């Protein structure tokens, strides 16, 4: 009886200490200070890849915050495409990731690429979350219903229904040229993406 109790207690203390010490919050902006839900450190990757470099990027059509619908195939033959999946609104790291891309438009222009941001949230949530970021130059799409269907097609839907923090670079022929299914707790560095865009030339 006593042994059981002690074991349980040690377990509880261990869990508390994990929560206390291992919170990697890279979302530093004062803007989101009181609004970001802190889940602590998550399993870096929690999905099984379905696509590989060289595959045709699956087509999809999703609603954007602006009200229009955006399809993957509308860019075929016209633009290189970067898809940025972020786990969900109001989560750490990614609340900073898109504002960063927002000042990096010239790299995308230089390599004739457009950026598409996707999360599994519904439109009103995405609207509330992205509005304080300022005017974003790229479309933000809602993969809310059927829930996470596009994330699932791309093999980046996690077991709890949010997506991975993932980047796909797709050329004008619709061929996937780069996949970065990133550690969900960390923000990918901009230069790695820019290097991949450079290779498309």
């Amino acid at each position, binding site marked *: 009886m006593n042994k059981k109790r*002690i074991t349980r*207690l040690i377990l509880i203390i261990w869990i*508390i200490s994990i929560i206390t010490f291992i919170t990697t919050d890279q979302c530093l902006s*004062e803007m989101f200070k009181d609004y970001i839900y802190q889940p602590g450190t998550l399993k870096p990757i929690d999905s099984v890849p379905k696509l590989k470099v060289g595959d045709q990027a699956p087509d999809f059509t999703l609603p954007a915050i602006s009200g229009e619908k955006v399809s993957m195939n509308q860019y075929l033959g016209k633009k290189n495409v970067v898809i940025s999946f972020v786990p969900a609104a109001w989560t750490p790291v990614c609340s*900073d990731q898109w504002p*960063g891309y927002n000042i990096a438009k010239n790299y995308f222009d230089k390599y004739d690429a457009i950026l598409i941001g996707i999360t599994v949230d519904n439109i009103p949530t995405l609207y509330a979350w992205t509005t304080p970021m300022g005017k974003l130059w790229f479309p933000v799409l809602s993969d809310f219903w059927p829930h996470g269907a596009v994330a699932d097609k791309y093999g980046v839907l996690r077991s709890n229904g949010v997506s991975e923090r993932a980047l796909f670079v797709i050329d004008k022929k619709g061929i996937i040229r780069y996949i970065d299914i990133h550690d969900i707790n960390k923000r990918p560095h901009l230069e790695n993406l820019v290097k991949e865009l450079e290779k498309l030339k």
Partner: protein
Amino acid sequence: MKKTIISITVIIFLFSGFVAVALAANEPPKEGGMLPDIKLQMPKSPEGKNYLGLKGDGSFTIPQIKANVVIIEIYSMYCPYCQKEAPIVNELFNLIEKNPDLKGKIKIIGIGAGNTPFEVDTFRKTYDIPFPLFQDEDFSIHKACGEVRTPYFIAIKINKKGTHQVIYSELGTIKNAEDFLKMIRKRSGLK
């Protein structure tokens, strides 16, 4: 039963001590106090070295900068508030540089928390930042400064003997460049 209670107490005691130590280690610099030990990489550009009044390569510490006052902005390229702050800090820089009483005496540097050199460069180019920016890719400076949110401003007054004091340490926007400069002049005693 007694044994259990004792062991529980011991565990809780050890744990709370651990928390206290962990929390105490990371506090933002206090006004009246000193900066934590921060080493920055010498800028490669001659303009950067010239502005800071430093020579050579390798690393340097902030109080080595040739100035009476150094204003430090901890920012991130990924932080929307820092993006909005950039033109205000540029204005502050211009106010200082245009004033013969202040030029060379008050200097500004930026430290990009978690930003790589490439990301620092992107921020510099986007907002035409005229003062030196430094990378803190591994968050080590950010950690030394108490893991503050961004933008965070610190100002230090450098004394003749090379000692220094923090005269400003606050989270958030400086709001108005002119008022901020007045306040810094007052606190540093710069006429």
